[in-house]
């Protein structure tokens, strides 16, 4: 039942991807509203999935890598729905839908939905730590999306190739401002999540701590470089893309080295 909800959600995101591809083919740029509703509908089904799974588990559904990926995809959609309209960044939905679709499709296809052997007791601090970290990842993911948009736009302006559907991308300065705000949002949430991790009561797993602090330091360093005007916007955008790729890889790696739940 819960996987069916997820399949419907994935189809919503797929509709957003197809719509964007058609817009690119027809060189018509009006995917924003459609993508917003496609992502909104997909988000509702994702939420229903997480709710059903959470009730079945009796805790926040972050007990295996499958749930982590779905929670991450949900966080990306959540942040997009919250900040997308506020930042008024055209085409952000067109870039977000493929990311969420990719994350969910991978989670559905890969054999990673393995129930955790021991039924884990509910631990509010652990769930706070895990969910805050995941929502922070959602903000980092959207910073990555904005980073990709920045790099595409910058490339177009550098090479004087301005006549694709992506010519409707927002100005570089607006994209950079969005990246910065998303990084701050993600960093604040991630910091709160990390602090929450110290109150879980159990022993602190060393590998997880090193990875978590590695991610925290990485994003902290980007923000510091930005604050001191030492990092060029293009570098910040590039680091957001690379950083998010690395952060997701860390999530994956933790699953292999950790005996407990992945987050």
């Amino acid at each position, binding site marked *: 039942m819960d996987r069916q909800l997820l399949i419907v959600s994935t189809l919503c995101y797929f509709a957003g991807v197809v719509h964007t591809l058609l817009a690119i083919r027809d*060189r*018509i*740029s*009006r995917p924003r509203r459609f993508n917003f509703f496609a992502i909104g509908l997909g988000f509702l089904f994702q939420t229903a999935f997480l709710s059903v799974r959470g009730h079945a588990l009796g805790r926040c559904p972050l007990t295996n890598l499958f749930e982590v990926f779905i929670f991450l995809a949900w966080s990306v959609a959540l942040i997009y729905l919250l900040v997308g309209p506020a930042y008024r960044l055209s085409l952000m939905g067109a870039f977000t839908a493929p990311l969420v679709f990719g994350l969910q499709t991978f989670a559905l296809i890969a054999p990673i939905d393995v129930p955790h052997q021991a039924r884990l007791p509910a631990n509010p601090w652990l769930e706070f730590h895990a969910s805050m970290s995941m929502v922070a990842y959602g903000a980092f993911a959207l910073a990555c999306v904005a980073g990709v948009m920045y790099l595409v*736009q910058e490339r177009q*302006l*550098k090479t*004087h190739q*301005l*006549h694709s559907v992506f*010519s409707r991308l*927002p*100005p*570089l*300065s*607006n994209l950079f401002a969005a990246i910065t705000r998303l990084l701050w949002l993600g960093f604040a949430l991630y910091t709160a999540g990390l602090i929450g991790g110290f109150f879980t009561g159990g022993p602190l797993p060393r590998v997880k701590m090193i990875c978590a602090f590695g991610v925290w330091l990485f994003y902290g360093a980007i923000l510091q470089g*930005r604050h001191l*005007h*030492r*990092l*060029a*916007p*293009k*570098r910040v955008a590039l680091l957001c893309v690379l950083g998010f790729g690395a952060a997701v890889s860390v999530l994956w790696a933790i699953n292999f080295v950790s005996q407990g739940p992945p987050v």
Partner: protein
Amino acid sequence: MMNLFCVGISHHTAKVETRERYALPRSEEVLRAESGCDEALILATCNRVEVYGSAAATVATDRITDCLVRGGAKTPEDAGVFYRYEGGECVRHLFRVVSGLDSMVIGETDILGQVKKSYANARESGSVGPHLHRLFQRAFRVAKQVRTRTEITRGAVSVGSVAVDLAVKIFGDLRDRRVLILGAGETSERTARALNSRGVTDIRVSNRSFERAESLAAVVRGRAISFHEWSRQCAEVDILISSTAAEEPLLTPNVLSPMMRERPDRPLFIIDIAVPRDVAPEVNEIDGVFLYDIDSLQAIAEESLALRRQQIAAAEVIIAAHVSDFRVRLGYARESPASPASVNPRGLDGGAFRASQL
């Protein structure tokens, strides 16, 4: 049944010397009284003078053109430059005009505002009755649909507007941006004016002749600076418009790289409209620098125009659907419907587009 018709002269059919004799038409009230139209609207822009009318009986074209001409300056040759559209063709013509398909610059949007203004004036004078009201309201709907459903208005089509569009793509809001004009040429002035119109207030002008710099600064509401100061000013500005007569490039990577290292998070947009170029092309490789020379600006403008031309067919389909519907509503359905291609079979060649030229 009321006859809708349009009699006009435009850049397709007449040169400016001819058009200017009709550039200050009389009011709609006078036109109605002298020509016998029940309803009338005059659309007068720099590229066209057209009368849209509605009458129970046919109104001769001469009666309309006699009303339009200024002070009896009509010549026998003028008769050949007027066109006339009746019924469905009139509807189609207006829809094409208001959508920017009949404009000199395809897809330009000023025409919609001009038509709206003419409509408002005619309505105020009581010259617009139910027929023209329905026709023009539908025309505004068509124009909106064409704008939103096609890319006919996309892209800038002049060097100045391309430069402004690019500046917006880089900086977003231009109000707080600083501009340095190096060399006070005509294109620099046009570009600076275009930036000025988008809210740029901090414009500095540097020229070998300080007097010329001062006069351009006055025109663009900027300030003149001494020519030997330009390199120092360059480090402060966001947009540099260069058009000096220098034989060798003034800006090279060696000059600009140290400057950009001091401002890694502030991009620099360089518009080099000088020939020979003032800025070495390698400068574009520097992070944060966006260099456009006159050829690249013109290429973008031409590409925009080509893209707009590609969108004509899509716009014609929208217009044809509305014309067809409007003809049925107004009882012109018995006329043979014209296909979009037959309206303007030679695409942009306006000379061929005279459905019933007199």
